[in-house]
C-alpha cells in the first residue's frame, strides 16, 4: 500500500514552494508564496507555493508543476545567497 513516489529516492523528498518561504522572504523582503510567476518553459502561471521544491541538495530548486522546468534556484554560500530566476518569465509582486 505505498505510492510509487514514496519509494523513489528523489521524488519522495519533493515538497513545494512553501518550504522556501523563509529564504525567499529574506531575499525579496516580502512574502513570495502567494506571488504568481510564469514558467518560461511552458507558460504556466503558478503561485510560488505551488512550485515543486527539491531541497535535498546544496542548492534549492523550484520547478514548474506543469512541465518540470526549473523556475527558481537558490544557493547559499557562507557569505552570500545566489538567486537564479531565469526560469521565470515574470514574478508578479503586488505593491502595498
Amino acid at each position, binding site marked *: 500500500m505505498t505510492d510509487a513516489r514514496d519509494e523513489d529516492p528523489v521524488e519522495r523528498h519533493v515538497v513545494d514552494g512553501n*518550504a522556501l518561504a*523563509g529564504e525567499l522572504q529574506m531575499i525579496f523582503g516580502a*512574502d513570495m*508564496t502567494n506571488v504568481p510567476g510564469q514558467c518560461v518553459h511552458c507558460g504556466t502561471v503558478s503561485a510560488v*507555493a505551488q512550485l515543486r521544491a527539491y531541497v535535498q541538495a546544496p542548492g534549492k530548486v523550484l520547478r514548474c508543476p506543469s512541465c518540470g522546468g526549473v523556475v527558481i534556484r537558490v544557493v547559499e554560500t557562507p557569505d552570500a545567497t545566489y538567486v537564479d530566476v531565469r526560469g521565470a518569465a515574470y514574478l508578479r509582486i503586488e505593491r502595498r
Partner: protein
Amino acid sequence: MAGGIAWQIATVTAITDETPTVRSFTLTVPDWPGHRAGQHIDLRLTAEDGYSVQRSYSIASAAAAGTIDITVERIDDGEVSPFLHDVVVVGDRLELRGPIGGYFVWEPALDGPLFLVAGGSGVVPLMAMVRERERARVETRTRLLFSSRHYEEIIYREELDRLAASNRGFEVIHALTRSRPDGWMGYDRRIDDRIIGEVLEPLGSRARVYICGPTALVETAANAMLRLGLPPDRVRTERFGPTGT
C-alpha cells in the same frame, strides 16, 4: 504584511505530549507580531562548532494566541526532531524567524464552508485554522478529513473530539490506514477519490479546501477535488517531505 523577518530568540514555555512520538512545544518571543492560521516558522539550531541546521514548522496555535505552538513528530534518524524531543526542556532558548507564508493561510472572514484534509502531522497548520475558527466564534461549516496510521497516532485526538462534540458546525472524519480498534466506524484505508467525494458532498462546490500532508496524499486529494469540479483557486496545498521534521 511586514517585509523582513529577522532571527530572534524564543523561550520554550511549555511542552505537551500529543502521542507517543509527537510532542508540542510552546514558544514565546518578546515581540511576536501575531500570525495567520496556516503560517509557519523556521527554527535554527547551531552547534558549538558553528554547524547549523534549519527546519520549518507549521504553527498550531490560533492566530491571536500570542504564543507559538509547534507540533513535532520524532523521526528516529532525523537531525532536529530527536534533539527537540530528547534534549529540549522548558526554559530553553531556541532561534526562530517568522511568521512565514501567505499562500496556505485561512482567516475567519473568508467565505464558504471549509474542507480540511490532513495526513499525519500535516494536521498542524489545519489545527491552527480549526482553533482560529473556534477562537473567532465563527460557525463556518468545517469538515476535517484526517488520515493517520494507527488510532494511538491521531494527533490532537481529544481536542478534535471535544470541538466536534460542541456541535458548532465542525466535524472530524478519520481514516486509519494501518490498524483500527475494534468497532472502528471511520474509514479504514488511504484517502482516495471516493472518500474525498463522500466527505466533500455535504459541503458542495463552494467549499474552500486546504490540504496538508505527504506529497502523495496531497496530490491524490487535490486531483480528486479538481475532478469533482472545485475551482483550482479554492484548493490550497502544502506538501511536506520526510525531512520536514
